[in-house]
């Protein structure tokens, strides 16, 4: 029997990966952040799933503007860390779960009407590997299997927040119908408020971020109508990545037990916030 055991929402800021890769955790800039995520790491040590469906977006690493999938599902046995312009991160190769991934593809495309792009090869960038580093630090091999779910967040039109939330719910149904045994986690990554580009670069909106986490945890249906125009305006051009947290939230039941929440700013140009949600129906 397969079930979704937990969800996590977290940004995937590349500089967090660089800080871990270069052992900067004790530096004055980084210490408050790494102190704050220590409980995240402790929790994950005791709550390892078999497989994580890891929702992230590619940042001009694997997908150019030539061919832009709205939702791309990784079906391979393994996924190499991508060269994003300065060599790949020195992290373990990411092992996939093709058996579950193909089941998801079959159910989501044939029965649920999600028009996934199927990927049999997919280099994964910081969007996927930084959350793994946040949770699992620097292991010789990642302790879990990962099914990458890459969402287009770079090029408008992005999938609506409503559609993302619906995909999460469909993922929950698809996992429930998997004939094998699996404890599955779903992580939604990206955000929170940040704007990397233009004259407004450096924008943060921590009040909005705090309210978003609060609503996400306790009143997710209220976020369903959220538009990109609002996210662009309030959380910055790259803050729109918060839409991906809604895939995670949709995959969990309304009843969840929040295990930990932590917010911190700045991390590079970004407002950081993390929440871990346990399935309240288990």
């Amino acid at each position, binding site marked *: 029997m397969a079930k979704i055991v937990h969800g996590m929402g977290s940004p995937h800021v590349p500089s967090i990966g660089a800080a871990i890769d270069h052992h900067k955790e004790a530096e004055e800039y980084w210490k408050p952040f790494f102190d704050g995520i220590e409980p995240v790491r402790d929790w994950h040590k005791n709550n390892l799933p078999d497989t994580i469906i890891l929702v992230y977006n590619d940042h001009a690493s694997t997908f*150019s*503007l030539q061919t832009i999938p709205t939702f791309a599902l990784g079906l391979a046995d393994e996924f190499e860390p991508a060269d994003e*312009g300065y060599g790949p991160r020195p992290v373990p190769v990411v092992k996939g779960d093709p058996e579950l991934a193909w089941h998801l593809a079959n159910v989501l495309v044939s029965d649920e009407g999600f028009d996934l792009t199927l990927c049999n090869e997919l280099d994964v960038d910081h969007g996927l590997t930084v959350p793994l580093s946040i949770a699992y630090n620097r292991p010789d091999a990642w302790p879990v299997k990962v099914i990458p779910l890459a969402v287009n967040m770079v090029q408008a039109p992005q999938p609506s927040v409503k559609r993302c939330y619906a995909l999460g719910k469909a993922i929950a149904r698809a996992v429930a119908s998997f004939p094998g045994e699996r404890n599955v986690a779903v992580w939604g990554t990206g955000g929170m408020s940040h*704007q990397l*580009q233009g004259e407004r670069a*450096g924008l943060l909106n921590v009040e909005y971020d705090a309210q978003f986490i609060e609503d996400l945890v306790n009143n997710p249906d209220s976020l369903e109508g959220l*538009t990109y125009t609002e996210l*662009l305006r309030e959380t910055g051009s790259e803050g729109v990545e918060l839409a991906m947290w809604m895939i995670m939230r949709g995959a969990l039941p309304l009843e969840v037990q929040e295990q930990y929440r932590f917010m911190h*700013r700045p991390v590079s140009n970004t407002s950081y916030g993390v929440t871990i949600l346990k399935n309240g129906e288990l």
Partner: protein
Amino acid sequence: METGYQDIPGTYVQDGEHCRKGYHLNQCLMTLNKAHCREAFRADEAAYLAGFKLTEPQRDAILKRQWLEMLRLGGNVYFTFKLAAFDGMTMQDLGAAMSREGMSGDEFRKMMLDGGRSIEGNRYVSEWEQN
């Protein structure tokens, strides 16, 4: 479909129009993901750029590292950052170079430590026109 995002100040939204305008610029910069392309670019930037369908202003903006101009010509920050990283810049250095105030990297880092650019007064173009 999303509408109404044109009145957000200092923000280059990657919509269809932006995509079409900057397509070759962004595709060109994305090749810097490959080590052998970075080497070729390092060896002769102008010769390297000649291999792409760039407009003259786009070519110029790349060669002169005019970061905002690249955005105006259809560039997207994920793609222009590859060039910035090639130059050894951090995302804060790039943010500083694009900021409306024209900050240094250190000034930008200090702004972030002080809470970042506030959302107040930065939601609408009209708010910027008043100052």
